[in-house]
């Protein structure tokens, strides 16, 4: 499978062939432009790189060079022949795929607005509330995911520990939300949005499946090879606090949580020990890992979409009626 990044656009300007997204713009000329012109339209229907090379007048080496260049800039993802990758290359490819799909999530309208300082107060605090539900759901999906003994202790010990370290973290976010003036009962008893439930239910279903399925979702959540430094973390939240001063206690909570995760080395790829244990993982298992990473990204996109759709005003932020057998007819 070979994908061009969903958020990049291509422009054929005769002499020049341009591929760009919001971060980078690559301009090809001469033979390279001709290769792009021939190869890129074939990508959507290609199963892998072999399907493309036959449709061009160029060699496999030229095509691989083009694709490798695009992949290194995050503009393509080449999953051709993943069954031939050794364990280390497979782990590196998982990181590449995770960064690729993470970039797609962050390129969506609401995350872009949110992390560029253009979200409204109900959206920012609503995101905090729904994120709290997501963190709280670790006690469902992570608990279910680690409830297994189908691998050696050396593989599962880290998985069990990961859940223990995450369990209870919802209190950090709850404290942050309370600091912003929201009421405890209004948060903890609130119905999560359907988009949040879609994400947490998906994570639960993956947790019920194979160890690869369960651990693949964390690859997307923690795509960095090295944990961010404390100064990287502060810088990120200093910016958010300056844009959204009303939510400073919430961002303090995020910062605290990110620092704990960084100190616990949660940026380590949780799936790596399982890959080494199962070595060599089958082609089917490998493709399933990449499919789960993509599907996890899709669910995070829906999660983010739900926030501006619902948190349009202070009223929804302060009150979401829970239907009962008596009052459901008043709820809309």
């Amino acid at each position, binding site marked *: *499978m070979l*994908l061009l990044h*969903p*958020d*990049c*656009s291509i422009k054929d300007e005769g002499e020049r062939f341009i591929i*760009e*997204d*919001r971060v980078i713009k690559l301009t090809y000329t001469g033979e390279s432009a001709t290769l792009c012109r021939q190869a890129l339209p074939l990508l*959507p*229907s*290609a*199963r892998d790189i072999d399907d493309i090379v036959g449709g061009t007048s160029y060699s496999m080496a030229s095509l691989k060079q083009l694709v490798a260049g695009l992949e290194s800039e995050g503009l393509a993802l080449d999953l051709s022949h993943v069954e031939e990758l050794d364990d280390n290359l497979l782990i590196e490819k998982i990181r590449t795929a995770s960064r690729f799909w993470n970039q*797609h999530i962050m*390129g*969506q*309208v609401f995350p872009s607005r949110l992390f560029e300082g253009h979200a409204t107060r109900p959206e920012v605090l609503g995101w905090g509330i729904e994120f709290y539900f997501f963190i709280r759901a670790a006690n469902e999906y992570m608990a279910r995911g680690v409830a297994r003994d189908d691998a050696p202790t050396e593989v599962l010990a880290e998985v069990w520990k990961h859940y223990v370290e995450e369990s209870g973290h919802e209190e950090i976010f709850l404290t942050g939300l309370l600091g912003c003036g929201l009421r405890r*009962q*209004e948060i903890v008893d609130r*119905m999560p*949005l*359907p*988009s949040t*439930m*879609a994400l947490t*239910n*998906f994570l*639960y*279903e993956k947790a019920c499946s194979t160890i690869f399925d369960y651990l693949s979702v964390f690859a997307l959540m923690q795509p960095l090879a090295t944990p961010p430094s404390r100064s990287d973390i502060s810088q990120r939240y200093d910016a958010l606090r300056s844009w959204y001063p009303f939510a400073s206690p919430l961002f303090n909570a995020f910062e605290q949580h990110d620092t704990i995760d960084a100190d616990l080395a949660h940026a380590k790829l949780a799936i790596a020990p399982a890959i080494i244990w199962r070595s060599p993982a089958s082609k089917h298992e490998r493709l399933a890992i990449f499919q789960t990473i*993509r*599907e996890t*990204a*899709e*669910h995070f*996109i*829906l999660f983010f*979409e*739900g926030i501006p759709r619902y948190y349009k005003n202070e*009223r929804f932020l*302060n*009150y979401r*009626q*829970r*239907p*009962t*057998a*008596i*009052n*459901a*007819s*008043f*709820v*809309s």
Partner: protein
Amino acid sequence: MFRFDGIPGPQAAEIIRHINSGSTVEQISNAVQADRTIVDAFIRSLIDQGLATEAEPEVYTGAQFTATLRSFYDQWNDQLFSHSLWQSLSLGTASRSIVDGWLIETYHFIRGANARLPYAIAHTADPRVRNIFAHHYREEYDHYGFFAEALVRRQISPEHVEQLGPLVGTRAVINWTRRCARTDSLAYAACSGLLESTGTDSARARAFYRTVATNFDADQTNFIDPLMKHIDLDEGFEHGNVMADIFNPIPQLSAQRANMIVQMTYQFVETLMQWFSDIEIHYFRFPHQSKRTVRIYRSNPAD
């Protein structure tokens, strides 16, 4: 729409929140730091207008709860079928790609009965309810075939559709019902009852399909014919009565459990609305293409 004067909006919202948590007037007055007479007058006016009641039962009989659900189903179905997806299908304003998308995702959803009904059977402890679910499943498990046939008639390969997998919104619907099934089999029964409640009006369903055929089958593929056959079959099974068959014999249902079931069913309504929006957003921008190997969800290219 009701308008109340003499009380600030946020304070009124706060009072309503406390009403729903079962607090007394005195407790509410203290909690919202408002004069008791104002709080009392506001609550009285809510009761007078039929917007609140002091008489929440502690228990419901199964028959009472069946009637409650049925009344909610009517309102929720109005809400569901007023969604722009259904309106555009009825009015003939939907694009061809949306019609394809609706059919594709409905195929996944109907096929998904195999991911939810047996799951509910396996998670149900009460043998009576379990047998009803099992009977329902035996009559339902292969209905995806009607939608596969409709896809084929519309020149869409069901194998390719399966390769791409369901849209996130479709998967969310299936996963929500599975959540209900493992939480409380009666919550599953209430959600399933909502789905089947639309099937009780076969004449309306047939009229809808005829409209869709008129508006969207210029090529005369007759893709609606298998869907009509599906209605004929469902009509014979009377699945619209399954919810009542499950709830009616229950002697007592606590208000707490009844409320939880209603809440989960309402969340199912929200999940269905989300599904309809997802179909519209996705297929408007990304018409189904028979050669595409991977679905691209929410492409957002740079200008």
